[in-house]
């Protein structure tokens, strides 16, 4: 568990299923919703709970983000972060887009930097944005992520095609942006 000034970041648990399931809002197209083959996937609460119960999948990769009131307001995920990989795909999603411009989001970003570039010694982080995800893209761009390009008509949902942009942050740039480490609680579970 990581306790910051604005956020608490901890390994997601089966009890978080309902709160995290609410982030899978099909009304708002997001790269977060994309599964294999880049299809929009909307799991049931039971499926989310079952996934969170699999420690081999969740441990060290799927984190719940709480605000200081103790409400789960988002999550961050490092997809494909295996030891043989040199990079991971990150997903940072909040139920409310306004969080992307908050200090809470910056604390989560610092946690991601430390996990990816110091703990896992990765070479780069990649993230994807659907063309409508303006707040998330602005968040990434302001933190050094650079666009690799836009794949046209990649995702079909809500009766139309959306483009999908890939953005990358390399280790060297990421380490420059690392601030003071967050305080790690004694009873760490992350």
């Amino acid at each position: 568990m990581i306790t910051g000034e604005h956020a608490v970041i901890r390994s997601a648990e089966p009890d978080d299923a309902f709160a995290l399931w609410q982030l899978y809002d099909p009304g708002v197209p997001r790269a977060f919703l994309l599964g294999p083959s880049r299809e929009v996937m909307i799991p049931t609460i039971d499926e989310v709970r079952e996934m969170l119960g699999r420690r081999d999948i969740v441990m060290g990769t799927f984190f719940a983000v709480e605000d200081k009131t103790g409400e789960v307001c988002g999550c961050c995920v490092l997809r494909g972060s295996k030891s043989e990989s040199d990079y991971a795909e990150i997903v940072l999603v909040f139920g409310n887009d306004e969080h992307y411009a908050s200090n809470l989001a910056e604390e989560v970003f610092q946690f991601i930097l430390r996990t990816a570039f110091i703990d896992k010694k990765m070479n780069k982080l990649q993230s994807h944005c659907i063309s409508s995800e303006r707040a998330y893209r602005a968040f990434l761009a302001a933190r050094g992520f650079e666009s690799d390009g836009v794949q046209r008509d990649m995702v079909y949902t809500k009766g139309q095609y959306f483009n999908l942009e890939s953005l990358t942050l390399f280790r060297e740039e990421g380490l420059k942006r690392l601030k003071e480490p967050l305080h790690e609680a004694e009873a760490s579970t992350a």
Partner: protein
Amino acid sequence: MKLKLRRPERRDLDVIVDWLGDPAFRRFLYGDNERIKQQMGSHILALLGGAMSMPSSTAGHFVCAAEDRGPVGLASVQDLSWRNRSCAVSVYAAGVVESERFYQSAFRAMVEYCFDELNLHRVSARVDSTNDAAHKALEGLGARREAVLRGHGLRDGSPCDVYGYGILRAEFDAARGQTDDSNATAGVAHGA
């Protein structure tokens, strides 16, 4: 080079097992993650089963056979999404001398198959930044280089760039309308 793309069969087993000695072929099958021999063996047997005919499948392979030489490469459809009406294609050339013509024929046949038979809207392809023959082939079909994924692959332990191409059905139709199809040199066999 006259190419025919067809589903793999048992008779292709020896050739495909030989190709496993080529790092480029293993990358074609598994990306940068090497597999152990047992995993590769079961995967090859599954590949020969040719799952592309099953409507629920999301991937399939085709042997690229030259008229005078037999199998000279393998092509694949991956990440097939009926919802997005899209997929990714890739092509492996097994030491083909005329690589530029081979890639032209193989990619053309695969893209035609995706649009004309699978009725897709978009086809993607990821190609190493050093594979000029594949770039030319894709761009000749009307595909656009949409993304440059920096340091995305590993070659001999060093990061290398990967180009992401995309072509929409309307673009392919337009490009096809400007070329003379009477000289087409490849196609996917019936029953694929």
